Structure formats: structure tokens, C-alpha cells
């Protein structure tokens, strides 16, 4: 008897979250200047997270049952969010979990449940499509690896590009865009990275108009969904 996918996702996902959080947030002695990069992030952890992301990603495209695909995608996104956190992008990692693993996956599961989609039993997979998909994917990965291997930029590590968090940084921010907010200033002087605050600062200082456009897009999307899912009044009409 195989383990049901939901249980599998829970068994693997939760420990991964806690493990990542625990390893990345080891308590440090207070007399050492706290720099929130991860010089001690073990390479093994990166490979584990990459394996989770890519392994579940592979399960998404190989599973016969759509429910398995959806739950694998959720696990894939949890691994991806952990990779974001390892890149000092706490806020992006959080909204990755909230929006993708939370909202979007629930939407997918609702649709699968509502439409009552069965697994593709007994259907022959389209061999030509599979071969062409694999060939295109392999070509793309080869190309990307070649380009990355020949780029000087790709050799940067968190060690040779550390974040600078001290009073000079605060001054630079004040010069850069608008008045420095005291809440950001205090955090940086204390040696922590105020990630969400800095994203909010950037968004509302430089991209205020874009935020409104995105808000309008969400409104249009909502109206469009309502219109699309309304049934036609005419009997027998092609809804």
C-alpha cells in the first residue's frame, strides 16, 4: 500500500521547514556582530533543498493522478521558498508559501475536486510529445549550464559579497530615496536585515503607480472569473 500523497507531503514538508529554520537561525553569541548572511549554511542543506524542489517538480510532470501532481507542486514550492530564505529573501519566501503553497494550490485542488478528474488510466501517453519535451528540456539545461559555467558573475558566493549593515549603509539609504525611516535605520544599525520593510520602502517609493496597476489587474481578474463561471441563461446554450 502506497502512502497517500497528502500524508507524504506532510511528513516531508513540515520537518523540512523546521530543519531549515533551525539551521539558518542558530543563536549566536551577542558579542559577535550579527550579520544575517549565512556563512555557515552548509552546502549539504542547499543540495537537500534543491533535490526536494527538483524531485517534487519531476513528480508533478510524471504523476498519473492530478491530485498527486498538485500536492507534489505544493511540496516543490515549499522547497523553493526555503531556497528563497537561504538567499536572505525572507519576505519573498513567506509570500511564496502563502500565495502558492496556500492559495493557488487550494484553488487547483478545488477545481480537481469539482470537475471530478480521474487519473489517466489505460491511456497511451503521446510518445512523440514526451520525447520532444525531454529533448527540449535537456537542450535548455545544457545551454544554461554552459552559459553559467562561462560567466564570471556566477562565481559569486555569499562570502565574497557579504551584506554591509552598519551606519554608513543607513546614510546611503537616506541619500538614495527619500528620508530614511527610523524603523529601517534602527534595524540596520542593530545588524539585522529589515527585509519586508525595505521591500515596502522600494515598492511605495519607486513603484507606487505599478502597485495600483496590479491592484486593477486583480480587480479585472476577479470580474473576469465571475463572468466566465456564470452559466448561460439560454437552455442548452454552449456555456
Amino acid at each position, binding site marked *: 500500500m502506497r502512502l497517500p500523497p497528502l500524508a507524504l507531503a506532510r511528513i516531508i514538508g513540515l520537518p523540512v521547514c523546521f530543519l531549515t529554520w533551525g539551521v539558518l537561525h542558530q543563536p549566536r553569541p551577542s558579542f559577535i556582530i550579527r550579520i544575517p548572511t549565512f556563512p555557515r549554511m552548509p552546502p549539504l542543506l*542547499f543540495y537537500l533543498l534543491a533535490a526536494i*524542489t*527538483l524531485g517534487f*517538480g519531476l513528480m*508533478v*510532470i510524471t504523476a498519473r493522478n*492530478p491530485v498527486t501532481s*498538485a500536492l507534489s507542486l505544493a511540496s*516543490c514550492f515549499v522547497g523553493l521558498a526555503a*531556497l*528563497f530564505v537561504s538567499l536572505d*529573501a525572507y519576505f*519573498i519566501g513567506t*509570500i*511564496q508559501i502563502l*500565495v502558492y503553497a496556500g*492559495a493557488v494550490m487550494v*484553488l*487547483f485542488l478545488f*477545481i480537481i475536486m*469539482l*470537475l471530478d*478528474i480521474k487519473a*489517466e488510466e489505460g491511456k497511451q*501517453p*503521446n510518445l512523440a*510529445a*514526451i520525447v*520532444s519535451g525531454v529533448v*527540449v*528540456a535537456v537542450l*535548455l*539545461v545544457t545551454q544554461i549550464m554552459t552559459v*553559467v*559555467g562561462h560567466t564570471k*558573475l*556566477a*562565481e*559569486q*558566493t*555569499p*562570502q565574497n*559579497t557579504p*551584506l*554591509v549593515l552598519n551606519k*554608513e*549603509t543607513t546614510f546611503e*539609504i537616506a541619500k*538614495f530615496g527619500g528620508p530614511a525611516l527610523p524603523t529601517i535605520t534602527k534595524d540596520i544599525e542593530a545588524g539585522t536585515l529589515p527585509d519586508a520593510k525595505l*521591500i515596502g520602502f522600494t515598492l511605495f517609493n519607486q*513603484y507606487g503607480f505599478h502597485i495600483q496597476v*496590479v491592484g486593477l*489587474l*486583480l480587480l479585472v*481578474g*476577479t470580474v*473576469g*472569473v465571475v463572468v*466566465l*463561471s456564470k452559466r448561460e441563461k439560454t437552455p442548452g446554450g454552449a456555456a
Partner: protein
Amino acid sequence: MITLGHYLVVSGMLFALGLAGVIARRNILIIYMCLEMMLSAANLALVGFSRFHLVNGLPDYTAQSLVFFTITVAAAEVAVGLAIIVALFRSKQSVETEVITKLQG
């Protein structure tokens, strides 16, 4: 030692997986999931570049703002796309791409 290249290769492999899924699968729902995977792979590359391109000693938050917008647009796209899939299922009673041949002439 983990470099930016490692993150870029993981991002590229995730994108390639999504692309292979879009080409090879016939279920529209799974094609949509693969689209989401490709968008997230692009986000990983953006966040990687953001971390390693320091502006005044801080990560480049322009890239992370772009990721924020990408996630928002992807969420809206999923909502509309799933509504289209529901409408399609109502008229065709299937979510396979092979039954949609109306434009084939």
C-alpha cells in the same frame, strides 16, 4: 561552496522541467501547474541575482519588487485560467488537450 551559479542551474532545471511538462502532458490542469513552476523558476533566478548584486551593501530590492509583481500576476492568471478550464469542461466534458480541435479547420 555555494555560488550564484548553483542557484541559476537549479532555476534553469526547474524551468526545463516545467517546459517538458507543458510539451509532454495532455491534461490542461497539469499544464497550468507546469506554467506555475516555470514562473517560480524565473523568480528563483531573480532573487539570486538580487542577493548577489549589492546596492549600498543591501540586496537589490528592485528585483525582489519584480518578483512580488510576478507572483501577483501569476495568482491572477491562475484564477482566470482555472475559470476558463471550468467553462471548457462544461462544454466538452474533458480537460484533455486533444478534445479541443475547433480551430484546427
